[in-house]
């Protein structure tokens, strides 16, 4: 599944570097505690270490910048053709589907371009490139789709755009709020519903939309 922010390529390298660094540090500490041999480390060794750190900082910044720019490049193209927030008739641009999302205390409303509203279920097709335009009108919310490797914070008043490539396998995938937004935060969950071709005409009959939202 292609996603600019997926844990592959440069990001996996960085996680590997981090794990390597942790192990190196712990090994150094264990060696200092338990090795017979004693060693007066040269000061130049520390400078060498700092240079390695600077290289790592440079690499991490470069990697993060390129990854994120690649992801946002799609959004920038989209912004040029997009109308005002939550406008109905706008060009979909490079995206197969555009969903306007209202995050509220406590749930998500997904509004299609045909102005069909669905509470707590974003209905998409397998492999589609989906743009979410998320806004909040009350408090700070979060928006996270684990299967798509994306997480974001939405401040009231902003329209924040995220895009994902929908999974190829039909099914229900979790969408959740990750920012504490009040007492119903734990229930603020929705589903990314990936509908296969055979379900296309059944619409939402199989969906129990009330399943995850409750006033409990």
């Amino acid at each position, binding site marked *: 599944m292609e996603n600019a*922010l*997926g*844990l592959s390529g440069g*990001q996996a390298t*960085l*996680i590997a*570097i*981090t794990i390597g*660094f*942790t192990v190196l*540090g*712990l090994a*150094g*500490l264990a*060696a*200092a*505690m338990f090795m017979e041999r*004693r060693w007066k*480390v040269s000061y130049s060794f*520390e400078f060498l*270490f*700092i240079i390695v*750190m600077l290289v*790592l*900082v440079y690499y*991490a*910044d470069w*990697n*993060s910048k390129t*990854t*994120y720019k690649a992801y*946002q490049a799609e959004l920038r193209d989209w912004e040029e053709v997009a109308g005002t927030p939550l406008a109905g008739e706008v060009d979909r641009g490079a995206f197969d589907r555009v969903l306007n999302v209202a995050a509220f205390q406590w749930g998500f409303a997904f509004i299609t371009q045909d102005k069909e509203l669905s509470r707590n279920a974003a209905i998409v097709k397998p492999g589609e490139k989906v743009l979410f335009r998320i806004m909040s009108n*009350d*408090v*700070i919310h*979060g928006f*996270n789709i*684990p299967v798509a*490797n*994306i*997480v*974001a*914070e939405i*401040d*009231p*008043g*902003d329209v*924040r755009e995220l895009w994902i490539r929908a999974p190829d396998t039909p099914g229900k995938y*979790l969408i959740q*709020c*990750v920012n*504490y*937004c*009040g*007492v*119903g*935060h*734990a229930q603020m969950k929705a589903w990314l519903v990936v509908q296969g071709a055979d379900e296309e005409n059944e619409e939402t009959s199989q969906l129990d939309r009330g399943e*995850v939202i409750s006033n*409990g």
Partner: protein
Amino acid sequence: MADKALDQKRLGNLPHWNPEDLIGKMTLKSLLFSDDYRHIAVKGILTSLVMLALGGIMAILFRTELAVPDVQILGARVYMTLMTLHGMIMVFGFLIPLIVSVCYFFMPKVLGHERLIWAKAAQLSYWLLILAAVLLVIGRPDFTWTAYPPMSLRTGNPLLWTGYLAIFLVAVSEFLAGAVLLRNALEARGGLSGAPLIAWAAGTVGTLFMVSTIPLAFIGLGLLTDYLEMTAYFDPARGGSVKFFLYVFWSYGHPAVYLPFVPAIAVLYTLMPRFLGHPMWSYWSGVAAFILLMLGAIPIGPHHFQPLYTVSGWYERMVQILTLLVFIPSVLHVFNWIATLFMERIPTSARRAVPFKFMVASIGFIIYGGATAFINAQISIDSDFIHNTYWIPAHFHAMFFGFVGQMAIAGVYYLYPYITGRMYNQKLANSHFWLWQIGLFTKISGMFLAGYNYFPRWVYDYPPLPEWASTQFMITVGAYLIGLGFILFLYNFAVSASKGSPVEGDPWPVEDDAVAAATPAE
């Protein structure tokens, strides 16, 4: 390293006090109002341990709630109140006061003043903090320790204002503590350049305290007046700005991490040469690291939130680069410690000493929690799986508890003979040590795994996904082990004060069995 006298002075680690039953000799009056530095420090230590017990009981309660999905023992509101109080009590009531109290105990002797300068300010700081804690327990706010508006203005809790007032009082209390630290550091006998590293730590962190608590005081007052509808700083529904809150709050919020962190490093720099019997590997790299940490603390605050959807703008990128660069002072410290441990044979007396064990373990946790911060700092990975998932509590529990908390407990064990005149029970202390290491490692690793699987923060219940349920269970097991260790610690602390073996002279002599066996004539 030629100047041996200077080295000796910078060591600042002589057996400064005589073991005595300080706690036993204290009266209620001296406990409450005495301005003697040891009385203030002991009062702070004992209060912090009570706070740790309170925050710990709360943690055990909500860890039990989270152990298995779909089973409720606490409702959402009770859970969130416990979570909020746990965060506030542990940071404002346990970590910062405990480690600062240990520094209050060390500084007068190590820096050579024989007394705590501005002790009255330290006293006032203590009582303001107690008032804040009482307000928090009365009001029981449920808006998390970050109190993000407008949510925090409308949780429906009728006593919400006590929470804002408590935030303001904490700010004033910490400002005073910072002033005391800075003042004592500046007065170090013989000037800063020859002073032990604790002076540099107190100077830099004192400055940071005083600068960063000003935004916090504004946050407390601003929330209060917003709540009373006198102002509208933060509520977008009335024309305020959430982003304004975020920038101001995290100007305190990130330095707040260093407020206990830097004193903990100072305690480490004081205890390590004391147990090893030789100076640190490098004095100036420690000084440089303290200054760099102080300079980096405030500008990198915005890495705690995602300000706009243009997260890759130049400002965010600058924050990212500065955050990554903070790695360097931290690495300077850790490198210094490991290099010092490597210098000479570690005496058997140090290996036996429980504070030394806690110190070494805390270095392990700073590596564990700190190295992983390398990926936290990056915006792309933050937007991938880190932001507001359990990855974040994993990181700060490793740093706050694994490092700062354990370093503070090392300080308490170290001071134990000086404040009770007796030695702790070695076996109980060893059990405490191992329970905490195993428990902490289990808990923190469980949190990292949960975060990697997108477990959201601040939920009292969750869908029964296998990767969520297993990691939550793991964290709860870790928390229970830590709780058990803490009970052993309290028992040891209380019982050994009357039943432990009395200590005469230096309780922490540097002795090596192998060396002693080789030179029996001495």
